[in-house]
C-alpha cells in the first residue's frame, strides 16, 4: 500500500519535471555551442499555445506536439538570424524573444481559452503496467515523458560520444580558433539554436497537451526561466539537468501538497518556493565552486563576426 503511494508521488514528480527536462536539454545544447538564448520562456509559451491549437484543429496530439515544437523552432530561427547571423546582443535578443513569444502566444491561443482536451494517452502494457509498486512508474507515462528521457540520453551521447558533438563543444569554448580550423561556426550555432527552440516548443506543448491539459495565457509561469537556471545548476551536463529537473519537480509537488494540506503557511510563500529555491540552488552551487574555474562554455554569450 505504502509502496503504491510512493509510486504515485514519484510519478507526479516525473511529470512535473518533464517540461523542465525538455526545455533545459534544448537550452543546454544551445549554450554548449556558445550561444545564450534567454528566450526559452517565450518559445515555450508559444509552443503551448500553438501545440494546443494544432491538436484541437486536427484532433491529433502527435501533430499538436509537432506544431508546438515547430513554433518554437520558428521563433528560435528569428533569434538565430539576429544573434548568429547579424551579431546582435544575445541577452537583449533573448528578452525580445520572450516578449514576442508571450504576445504571439496570446494571439494564437485567443480562440482556445477555456477549451479542454483529453490529456495525451498514457502507455498501458497489460501485465507490465499493472505490476504493483513499479508498473506505473516504468510503463505508465505519456509519450512526452519517454521522449524527454530519450532526449537526455541522446544528448549525452551526442555531446560526449560523437564527432559533431565534440565540434559543437569546441565551438562553444573558442569560436575564433574553431573558425580558423575550418569548422562552420555559424552554421552549427544556428542549428543548435533551432534544436533548442524545438525542445522549448515541445516542452510548452507538453504543458498544454498533457500536464494541465488546456491552454491559458502565460501558463508557463516562469518555467522557461527555471529551465535556464537548471542549465547553470547542472554545470552544462545533460544527466545533471535531468537530476536537477527531478529535484525541482519534487519541490513543485511538495509545494502543491503543502498547499492542499493547509500547513498554516501563506499560500503566496509556498508559491514563491520554486523561485526562491532556484536562487538558493544557484548560491549553493557557486559556494561549492569557489575554487577552480567556471564550467560554463568559454565563449558563452560572446558575439562572433568572422571577417572572412
Amino acid at each position: 500500500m505504502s509502496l503504491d503511494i510512493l509510486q504515485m508521488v514519484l510519478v507526479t514528480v516525473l511529470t512535473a519535471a518533464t517540461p523542465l527536462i525538455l526545455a533545459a536539454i534544448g537550452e543546454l545544447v544551445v549554450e554548449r555551442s556558445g550561444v545564450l538564448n534567454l528566450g526559452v520562456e517565450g518559445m515555450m509559451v508559444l509552443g503551448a499555445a500553438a501545440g494546443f491549437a494544432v491538436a484541437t484543429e486536427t484532433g491529433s496530439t502527435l501533430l499538436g506536439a509537432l506544431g508546438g515544437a515547430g513554433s518554437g523552432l520558428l521563433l528560435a530561427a528569428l533569434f538565430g538570424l539576429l544573434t548568429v547571423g547579424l551579431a546582435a546582443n544575445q541577452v537583449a535578443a533573448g528578452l525580445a524573444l520572450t516578449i514576442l513569444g508571450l504576445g504571439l502566444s496570446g494571439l494564437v491561443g485567443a480562440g482556445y481559452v477555456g477549451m479542454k482536451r483529453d490529456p495525451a494517452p498514457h502507455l498501458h502494457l497489460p501485465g507490465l503496467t499493472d505490476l504493483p509498486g513499479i508498473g506505473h512508474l516504468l510503463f505508465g507515462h505519456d509519450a512526452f515523458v519517454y521522449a524527454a528521457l530519450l532526449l537526455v540520453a541522446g544528448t549525452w551521447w551526442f555531446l560526449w560520444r560523437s564527432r559533431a558533438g565534440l565540434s559543437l563543444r569546441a565551438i562553444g569554448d573558442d569560436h575564433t580558433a574553431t573558425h580558423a580550423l575550418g569548422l562552420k561556426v555559424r552554421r552549427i550555432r544556428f542549428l543548435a539554436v533551432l534544436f533548442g527552440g524545438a525542445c522549448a516548443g515541445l516542452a510548452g506543448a507538453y504543458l498544454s497537451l498533457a500536464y494541465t491539459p488546456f491552454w491559458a495565457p502565460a501558463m508557463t509561469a516562469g518555467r522557461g526561466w527555471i529551465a535556464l537556471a537548471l542549465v547553470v545548476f547542472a554545470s552544462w551536463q545533460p544527466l545533471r539537468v535531468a537530476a536537477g529537473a527531478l529535484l525541482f519537480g519534487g519541490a513543485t509537488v511538495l509545494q502543491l501538497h503543502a498547499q492542499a494540506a493547509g500547513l498554516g503557511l501563506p499560500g503566496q510563500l509556498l508559491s514563491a518556493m520554486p523561485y526562491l529555491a532556484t536562487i538558493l540552488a544557484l548560491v549553493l552551487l557557486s559556494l561549492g565552486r569557489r575554487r577552480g574555474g567556471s564550467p560554463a562554455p568559454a565563449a558563452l554569450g560572446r558575439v562572433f563576426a568572422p571577417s572572412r
Partner: protein
Amino acid sequence: MRLDLLPRARRSPWLDLLSPALAFAAAVLIGGLAVAAFGVPPGQAFLAYFVAPLSEAWSLQEVALKAAPLALIATGLAFCYRANLWNIGAEGQVVIGGLAGGWVAIAAHGSEGATVWILPAMLLAGTTAGLAYAMIPALLRVKLGVSEILTSLMLVYVAQLLLDYMVRGPLRDPQGYNFPQSVGFDEAARLPALMTGESLHAGAPIALLAVLLATLVLARTLFGFEVRAVGASPRAARFAGFSDARLTLAVFAISGGAAGLAGICEVAGRIGQLQPEISPGYGFTAIIVAFLGRLSPPGILLAALVIAVTTIGGEGAQIDLKLPLDLTRAFQGLLLCLVLGADVLTRYHIRIVPGGAGGGALP
C-alpha cells in the same frame, strides 16, 4: 549564399539615427500585414495606434502617464545595460518600491501630523526599497559570481507574491468588505495633479528630471565615463583601474532606485492605494524602451513616448476595431527584435557573397 560582417572603423551618427527609424518602419509594415490578417484595413489601424492617442487632451495625458514610469525605469536600466550588466528584474523593484512607499502612507493614514513630510517620506521609502531589492542580485554577483540575469528575474515573482500577501493580509483595509486592497491614501499622500481636475500628476516631471540628470551624469562625469568605458571595452577599463564590483553595485543601485521611484509614483499618483497588482509590466516594457532608445537618456524619452502611444493606441484599437491587446505586445517584441537586427548596420558593413560556402556560412 554567405553573409559577411565587416566591422566599421567608425560609427556614423547618421546610421545611429537611421537604424532605429528603419526598424520602426519595418515593424509598422509587418504590423500592417498582421492587422490585415485580422480583417482590419491597415490604414485605419495605423490611425488608431499612432494618431488617435495624440489627438485629444485626455489621451495625451494618458500617454504622458504611461511614458513617465517607462522613461524613468529605462533610464536607470540604461546604466546597467551600458556596463554589460543585466538587471531584468526591474518589474520586481517597481513592485517593492510601490509596496514600501505605500506602506508609509498606510501607516500614517488618518494621523493629524502627516501633511508636509508624508509624500517625501513615501518617495524616499519607495526609492530606497527598490534600490535595496536590486542589491540582492548585485551582491550575489559581486560576492559569489551568481548570474544576475536569473536572480533578478526570479525576484520579480517573489516581489509580486509578497505584494499579493501584504494586500490580502496585513495591509488590507479592515473596512474594505474583504476586498484585497489597502485603505485609500490621504490627500497629502497623493502626488499632486499638474492641473486641477486632470489625471496627469507630478510623476511626469519627476521622470523628466531623472532623464535630464542621467544625460548629464553619463556625458559629463567620471562615473558616466566609467560606465561607458566598461561597456565599450571591459579589458581596457580594468587596466584603467575601474573596479568591477563597485560599478556593478552602483549601476544596480541606480536602476533599482529608479524602478522603486517609478513604483511609488504609480501608487501615489494614479492608484492611490495598494492593490494586488500595481504595475502592468512597466519593468519589462522598460527593457524594450531602453534598447529602442539606444541606451541614451534622450533616446529613451522618445522611445518611452512611442511605446506609450502604441500601448494607448492598442487599448483604443481593442475597443474600436476589436483587435486583441496581445497584438500590441507582439508588435513591441518584434520592434525590439528589428531594432537589434538593424543595429548591425551601425557596427558592420554587410556583404552578401553569393554562392560562397566558407566558414561563416549560414544554412
